């Protein structure tokens, strides 16, 4: 049965739930985008960790680093035990292990994109996951024709909704005009802002379907106690 329309999915990330109107749309596909080093991967990890702490299983699919390398770079987090990764509450997968690897002139075919979706569906079903993170979409997009990418994203969005799994798609870059932004049910934008020569890590909720979300700009800090945000001061 698909996720109920209008239902909220509490992320467990206190600061995020507060500014998106209580949680992400249940069964929705949320894009977290931003340039390198803006904290997208840590955002995705905390999303899965907070879920695991609440007894919800999650799947992390990497399209770049192998899971073992990725694990080596996860910082020490005081809010959660690293053993959560080993306990099976969070499953680590690599996109190369999904689908058949079929390419046509170096591009992922429509059939291969469908096979990937099927394998993602299997991973969600087998692990009984209610959370998914795909980190990142860009390497896949590079290997897909536009129309294949569009079908892939729509299929993924439908899959998440049908399986009541709320997913995060990580997208690298500052452009808001990409396919994943168009198809997503929510967009959280990470980035940097400069004020009087000081660099700030900032976060904005650009879109969150069906929610009266905050439109303010927040300064954020990724700490061992999790992500923290505070409204960016204006001084006016």
């Amino acid at each position: 049965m698909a996720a109920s329309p209008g239902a909220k999915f509490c992320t467990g990330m206190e600061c995020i739930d507060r500014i998106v109107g209580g949680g992400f749309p249940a069964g929705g596909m949320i894009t977290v985008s931003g340039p390198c080093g803006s904290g997208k991967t840590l955002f995705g990890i905390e999303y899965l960790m907070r879920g695991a702490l609440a007894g919800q299983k999650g799947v992390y699919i990497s399209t770049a680093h192998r899971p073992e390398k990725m694990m080596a770079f996860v910082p020490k987090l005081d809010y959660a035990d690293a053993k959560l990764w080993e306990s099976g509450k969070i499953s680590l997968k690599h996109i190369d292990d999904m689908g058949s690897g079929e390419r046509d002139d170096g591009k992922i075919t429509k059939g291969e994109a469908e096979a990937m979706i099927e394998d993602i569906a299997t991973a969600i079903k087998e692990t009984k996951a209610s959370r998914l993170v795909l980190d990142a979409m860009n390497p896949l997009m590079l290997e897909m024709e536009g129309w294949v990418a569009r079908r892939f994203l729509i299929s993924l969005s439908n899959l998440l909704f049908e399986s009541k799994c709320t997913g995060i798609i990580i997208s690298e870059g500052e452009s808001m005009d990409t396919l994943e932004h168009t198809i997503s049910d929510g967009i959280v934008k990470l980035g940097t802002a400069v004020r009087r020569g000081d660099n700030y890590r900032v976060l904005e909720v650009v879109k969150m379907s069906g929610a009266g979300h905050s439109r303010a700009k927040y300064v954020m800090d990724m700490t061992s106690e999790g992500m923290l945000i505070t409204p960016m001061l204006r001084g006016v």
Partner: protein
Amino acid sequence: MEEVAPQVLSRLNELGPAVSIDFNIGVEAYFDTLTTLVDRFCNKKGLSCIYISVTMPASTIRSALQSLEIDAEKLRFVDCISFATMECSANDDDRTVFVESPTMLEYIVLKMEYLFRKGKDEQFMVILDSVNSLAAHNEVRMLYEFMQVLMASVKSRGAYPVLLSMEEQMKPDVLEMLQLVCDQIVTLK
């Protein structure tokens, strides 16, 4: 000048937590006020203390307290000046967190929030030392907005919000701002 400690202690005991108080002090009363707050109030009541230092590096304050044999075990610092002067190091203990510049006001709030989370079962006093040092680095309008956010955060945690301001350095617009954000301003005589 009267002794500082009784004045400070009576005010804090009278007001209780979640009431913001500014102690407007002369330079000569600075260390007495500091030691009263840390030792005779926080330590005696078993409170943890988050000390936002903008005037002196955390290491200097810690050394001064150590030389007076004051227990600083429950004292954590948000040090806003050592990073700018390259005096912080990776070896600093986890009771001190650094903000790159006193102009980065939002990070002061975030680092304080971080320390609150680390000591989630503890009751805190938050000391901002000092309003004038922050005013030297920031526009008063920006400082006003920051103070509102800081005070709201401290009060919502049921902590004791304490501001220190220096009588000799007080500018009229800073005093005006303090009157808006503080529940009480006490000039120590």
